[in-house]
């Protein structure tokens, strides 16, 4: 019987590893990631379920799944030319296969991914938080970039199905969920900042969405986080769906006080109970 023991959420800007390399530990993201890293270490997970939006790196528009599960013994990355170290990371193939089978049985049409690498959206968080790369991961991909997107409610239900599958797994594994994504970010679209290639169009939505999580108001969050609303906060802001899926795994527990950077569109969250 597997057990979900904690949940986490972080952003994943691809520029940060290089910036931190230059600037050192005085860079402001260092303590933010460190705080989550400590919580991950304290939770002692055997496996990290990583909810992720691929950035056209693992998948392209030729064959683009809505949801996919990585089922393999290991993966590597980043595969998108992000300037940072290249890592190999183990994947828990047996639990991954069980999560996928259970999900398909529960009516989630989860693509099977067996031969793949992952991009900065997984590797940047691991680089800062688990650089030893000793905790096996299971990447669960959600299409957050190419409408039609899955609804917030469906992503939450997927998380719930994954939790049930963890609990029906034969081995007594400690499993934590990790969401990776921004709440407000525009890349290359009309809402970029003047003179920039990106922008943070909607800091108020960052506070709103994080506030609903902070208050445990999940139903309200699922109502408000429509595709339309998320895309008003920026064209890659539906990365929030990774957090919503992780919340499905976590259930109605409340997070520790969240670290909010509304001006950067970013949030760091820790759910711990065990």
């Amino acid at each position, binding site marked *: 019987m597997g057990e979900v023991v904690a949940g986490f959420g972080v952003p994943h800007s691809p520029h940060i590893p290089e910036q931190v390399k230059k600037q050192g530990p005085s860079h402001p993201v260092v303590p933010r990631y460190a705080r989550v890293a400590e919580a991950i270490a304290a939770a002692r997970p055997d496996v990290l379920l990583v909810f992720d939006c691929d950035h056209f790196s693992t998948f392209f528009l030729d064959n683009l799944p809505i949801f996919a599960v990585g089922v393999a013994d290991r993966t590597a990355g980043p595969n998108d030319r992000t300037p940072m170290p290249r890592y190999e990371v183990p994947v828990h193939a047996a639990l991954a296969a069980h999560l996928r089978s259970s999900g398909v049985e529960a009516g989630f049409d989860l693509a099977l991914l067996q031969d793949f690498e992952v991009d900065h959206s997984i590797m940047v968080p691991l680089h800062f938080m688990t650089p030893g790369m000793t905790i096996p991961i299971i990447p669960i991909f959600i299409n957050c970039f190419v409408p039609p997107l899955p609804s917030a409610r469906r992503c939450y239900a997927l998380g719930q199905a994954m939790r049930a599958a963890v609990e029906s797994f034969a081995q007594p594994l400690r499993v934590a969920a990790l969401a990776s994504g921004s709440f407000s970010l525009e890349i290359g*679209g009309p809402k970029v*900042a003047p003179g920039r290639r990106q922008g943070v169009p909607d800091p108020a939505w960052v506070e709103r969405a994080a506030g609903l999580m902070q208050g445990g108001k999940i139903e309200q969050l699922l109502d408000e986080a429509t595709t339309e609303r998320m895309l008003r906060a920026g064209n890659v802001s539906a990365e929030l769906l990774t957090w919503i899926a992780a919340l499905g795994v976590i259930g109605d527990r409340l997070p520790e006080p969240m670290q909010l950077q509304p001006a950067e569109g970013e949030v760091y969250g820790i759910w711990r109970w065990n």
Partner: protein
Amino acid sequence: MSVYQLNKLCHRTLDDLEFREAMKRDPQAAIAGFDLTAAERDTLLAGDVARLFEIGVHPFLLSFLTRYEIFGLTTEVYSERIRKARDPHRSA
């Protein structure tokens, strides 16, 4: 399929270093291998990223062109142009 071809072209600019160099050196020749309409070709060569966005090229992929300053798209030029595009998801 043309929009798919445009998206693919943007992606190749990130992913394929030889293609990226060809795009910098001689964009007209570099894009000849893609199945594009004449209008799409002109829009590309003009660096009209607002129009490319409006016909459906994904902005994340489109931004690869300015990352390597293809078609004269410095960050400033790119930003100025894309900010004028019609946005189906306007900020509140």
